[in-house]
């Protein structure tokens, strides 16, 4: 096959990809670090998100973060503002005088997590922003991290879900719960324990760089492109004298198993193969005719 003809096929393929990719982007969740978090005096969390694709943001925040409302900051701008107004929760351990110990609700704002299962066997986190006692902390992940090891050899193996203390101080973790679900279910506030969640892990110390594994049975069930949602919530106390706690509650969106070959891919592949076969046969016939 001549290089030029193959190159032209590739160029055509590239343009087809370019045209269709933006349409398809709506259905997926991507990592993007182009946003920042602000907390106002009423402890409302404001996430400003800069994206070149408005639909991507809308599909993102309207799904797992049900409490978020996404709206464009400016009709002609790419900046979108997401507001979440749910600032206070009573301290679960001191519910008797909850009026005095209202906690600032500090939430992990987690945007875009998915498996890199084709290349690396770990869950990649990006753009995790969190607040502490109502203040802006920043973009560096200084709280407990999470790590997921997908099954090595396909279906049948359990997944291990770790909570890791990536800080330099011991953390006291309480009311930690994990859940795995195949559907998006926004949390309706922080309830302890949450119905449908797994076992409640209460009051344990997590030293720096230590991790606690939680094993789930493999939910994959040989479904090609199923999406599963891992969720962890609980309270983490940082330091004994710390007056505040932060609640972490985030949802991992896992697109486990990108399709091996979609119908469109199969059609293009078959078309290229047939085209190549025709070219080869024609060249052979020409060669025979010349001889």
């Amino acid at each position, binding site marked *: *096959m001549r*290089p030029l003809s*193959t*190159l032209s096929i*590739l160029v055509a*393929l590239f343009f087809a*990809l*370019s045209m*269709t*990719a*933006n349409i*398809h*982007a709506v*259905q*997926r969740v*991507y*990592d*993007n670090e182009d946003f920042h978090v602000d907390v106002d005096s009423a402890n409302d969390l404001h996430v400003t998100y800069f994206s070149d694709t408005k639909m*991507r943001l809308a599909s993102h925040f309207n799904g797992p973060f049900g409490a978020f409302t996404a709206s464009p900051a400016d009709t002609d701008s790419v900046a979108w503002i997401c507001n979440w107004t749910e600032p206070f929760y009573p301290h679960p351990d001191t519910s008797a005088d909850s009026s005095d110990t209202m906690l600032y609700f500090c939430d992990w704002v987690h945007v875009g997590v*998915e*498996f*890199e*299962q*084709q*290349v*690396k*066997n770990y869950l*990649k986190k*990006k753009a995790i922003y969190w607040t502490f006692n109502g203040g802006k902390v920043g973009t560096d992940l200084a709280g407990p991290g999470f790590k997921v090891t997908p099954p*090595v*050899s*396909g279906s049948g193996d359990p997944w291990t879900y770790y909570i890791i203390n990536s800080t330099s101080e011991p953390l006291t973790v309480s009311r930690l719960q994990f859940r795995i679900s195949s559907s998006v279910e926004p949390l309706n506030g922080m309830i302890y324990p949450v119905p449908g969640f797994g076992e409640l892990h209460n009051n344990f110390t997590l030293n720096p760089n230590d991790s606690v594994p939680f094993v789930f049975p493999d939910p994959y069930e040989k479904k090609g492109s199923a999406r599963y949602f891992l969720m962890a919530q609980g309270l983490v106390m940082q330091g004994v004298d710390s007056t505040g706690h932060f609640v972490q509650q985030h949802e991992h969106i896992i*697109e486990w198993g*990108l*399709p*091996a*070959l*979609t119908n*469109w*891919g*199969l059609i*293009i*592949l078959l078309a*290229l*193969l047939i*085209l*190549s076969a025709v070219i*080869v046969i024609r060249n*052979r016939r020409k060669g025979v005719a010349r001889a």
Partner: protein
Amino acid sequence: MTRDRLNRLLISFLCAGSSALLLSFTHVRAENWWFSLFALAPFLWRAVEAGRAQAAICGFLLAISYGIVALPVETASSLTVQPSHFLCLSALFALYALVVNWVGRRVGFNAIFIAALWLPLEFVLSRYAGFGSISSFSTSDSSLVSRGASLFGLLMISFVVLVVNSLILMVVRYAVQAVLSGSTLFRENDTDVCLYHRETLLERPCYYFPDRRAPPVFMRIPVPRTVGSKQ
């Protein structure tokens, strides 16, 4: 082992090893994905150009060298799993190299066919061998590649990567032929083999004289007649 066979083995080793090394670069960081666009070119060159045995050896060597790097730690550390993984991987790569070699002899070097033949291998490796996709890189960013993967499937990414590998190989082969070596042997008739020396780009500035007037360089090399051959 003769010196000639040793040299061939060494070339196979170099080709397979360089391919494995380049493939391993793609796994170090997700940003290195572009290494995979030309990582398999040395292996493909050897698989197509060499004989069947050398092609299979090249596939075997690539499987060994790549497997050492790419096997997950927990798999590699397991003494029971490791040999079976290496065995499957070696057999698959050797089989692929053999099929590519056979196709190359039948229909010539065809980028589409070579890439299409890769897909079953890739599927088996990622689904059953625990290696993950070799040529499709990180799908966690919002790049065009990841969107394409979700639209057409991961195998199509591998397909495009293999086509690019093959095209790069074709361009390099053409460049080498055009610039360095333009001599070809062909059989003129039953008895004579002719050496046709085509002027190369490298020779042009060195040996070409503006006022040269002569037929193309054409040498006739008489083939030694064997006993009993017809006059």
